[in-house]
């Protein structure tokens, strides 16, 4: 008998007590939304993102390039990797840009100081950015290998709760939820930022 048949057989044998008509109801009385207004959702997002030692910046839609220039100047970064479909008008003129056309390897990205991407969804309750490899986000390795990540998110894409966020996503895409820079607490529980992913995360909220 194949392992598959044997394991499924054992499962069925183990469940002989379960009647065929069995259906346990799942109570879903938890909150789907936070019940607060847009402005409060955005303020909460700003607060939870900062709590996780990412830095939150805000900008108007037509000011993105100058906001990006200021943020990068603060970090001393002059060269960035970006997805091919990132809008040109998000990029300051004097920036040295490496465009990921789908052929960059991890080694190439290791040599770049940072990356800039958009995000699909932001979650206010938890300070989370969700990347789903959709428009302006590029492949997963783009926001992973370089030491610095600047993530641009539109206020329209910020939701309050985890259920609201998952409701907007398509499960078949590769999805990464990012809450602050990578961190470890494995040594005497002292938090150290940035073990393998980017050590620094800047978030630009566009509203």
């Amino acid at each position, binding site marked *: 008998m194949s392992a598959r048949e044997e*394991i499924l057989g*054992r499962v069925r044998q183990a469940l002989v007590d379960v009647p065929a008509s069995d259906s346990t109801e799942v109570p879903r009385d938890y909150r789907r939304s936070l019940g607060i207004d847009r402005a409060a959702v955005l303020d909460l997002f700003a607060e939870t993102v900062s709590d996780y030692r990412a830095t939150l910046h805000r900008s108007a839609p037509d000011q993105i390039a100058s906001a990006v220039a200021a943020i990068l100047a603060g970090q001393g970064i002059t060269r960035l990797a970006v997805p091919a479909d990132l809008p040109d008008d998000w990029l300051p003129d004097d920036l040295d840009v490496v465009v990921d056309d789908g052929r960059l390897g991890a080694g190439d990205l290791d040599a770049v100081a940072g990356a800039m991407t958009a995000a699909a969804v932001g*979650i206010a309750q938890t300070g989370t950015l969700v990347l789903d490899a959709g428009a302006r986000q590029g492949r997963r390795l783009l926001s*992973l*290998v370089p030491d610095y990540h600047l993530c641009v998110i539109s206020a329209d894409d910020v939701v309050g709760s985890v259920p609201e966020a*998952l409701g907007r996503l398509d499960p078949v895409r590769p999805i990464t*939820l990012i809450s602050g820079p990578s961190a470890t*607490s494995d040594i005497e529980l002292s938090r150290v930022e*940035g*073990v393998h992913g980017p050590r620094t995360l800047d978030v630009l909220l566009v509203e």
Partner: protein
Amino acid sequence: MSRTFLGLPRHGDGGFPAAAHEALADSQLRRNLHKATTTIRAKRSAVVGELPDWEALRDAGAAIKERTLRHLDVHLERLEQAVTERGGTVHWARDAAEAGRIVGDLVARTGSREVVKVKSMATEEIGLNDSLAERGISAYETDLAELIVQLGHDTPSHILVPAIHKNRSEILEIFRREMPSVPADLTDDPRALAMAARQHLREKFLSTRVAVSGANFAVADTGTLAVVESEGNGRMCLTLPDTLISVVGIEKVVPSWEDLEVFLQLLPRSSTGERMNPYTSLWTGVTPGDGPQEFHLVLLDNGRTRVLADTVGRQALNCIRCSACLNVCPVYERTGGHAYGSVYPGPIGAILTPQLIGVENAPTLPYASSLCGACYDVCPVKINIPEVLVHLRGQVVEHKRSARTPSPEGVAMAGLAWVLADPARLERAQRLGRRGAGLLGRDGRIARLPGPLGGWTDSRDVPAMPPESFREWWRRERLGDA
């Protein structure tokens, strides 16, 4: 039923009591553990307190798990179909040896002799690193704590923070000894140590073509797998290699995408005490042009169907390995994880391990608890751990009764029953007992019972016998024949 390997026994024949006794003598270990468990406990309760709907989430989480387990065959078949439709390959492993063989074959087929690994309880449980080593394949742990444990030739002692029993100077010593690239002036500052690990592993991430992971959840409807982590080593392993092999216990399946909204709230808050862990990766089969182009899912039984067959004990399979129960357990806090002799320590280990390998093979574990109930209160999926402990204790007793050689307690209890059955015998025994006054400690308590009962008094005193029994007093006072 095939034999289930669970890395047991890692300690001698004395089981939990003997190992716990040893651990209790290590005051450094107790200090490390106390600090760790109290810190995580405080963080957890703060973030749980932020959610007014916490109890509703627990109810939902428990119900989803229970409902899934009651129809596990259906969900597993759906999961297999969904993963396959998205370009993945599903394998089934009856036990640890079979899982090790499958993974070894898959790695061998790629021609690679190295794999990078994401921390995973399932691969720990099946001793995968050892079985790969036997085939000449090196497995590199990439989680910082797992790396410390691996380089220290040690075993994990906590589900979430496996190296919690090591302090910074011990870690520095391990790194100096085992990491060729370590800077000469490395200090025991946690940041410096973490950066040394980053340096050490980066080259591995960029060059290794095969990764092995576990998964926290597997969604049956969509075929999506989820890995929750902090350091980014998970993302590295799940993104950069060409081939990804995930070893996942059959109990990790959840029916629908919607169910993740419950567990992605319950797990981080219960586990690290954060609103959300830094990184969660979700992937479904393979995505052309992004991430590994070959994906294998190994579904692991290794005793889980045995647990499923026990209608009381089955709830142990609800466990999402958050480790909250370890951090509140007074027994774990004093003994640490190694005393449990299994990859699953603490209260969950005390109920899961004996069921996975059979209570007769871990008869002391159901007693590794004070039944205080703190574990039940924090468990995000409402596993009634005390109930299962008591249930398993019953099975231990049952097993001992049917075993051919009676246990010391069995003999003592049978003797006691004989004495209590007859008043004359009882009185004789009581007089004899008083004559054993040599047993008395200085404060009039018996510090150590003789013979096989000594184990019982190792951790408690027995009040001494009164100078006169009630029957003797009655006869003297009322019947005048003392």
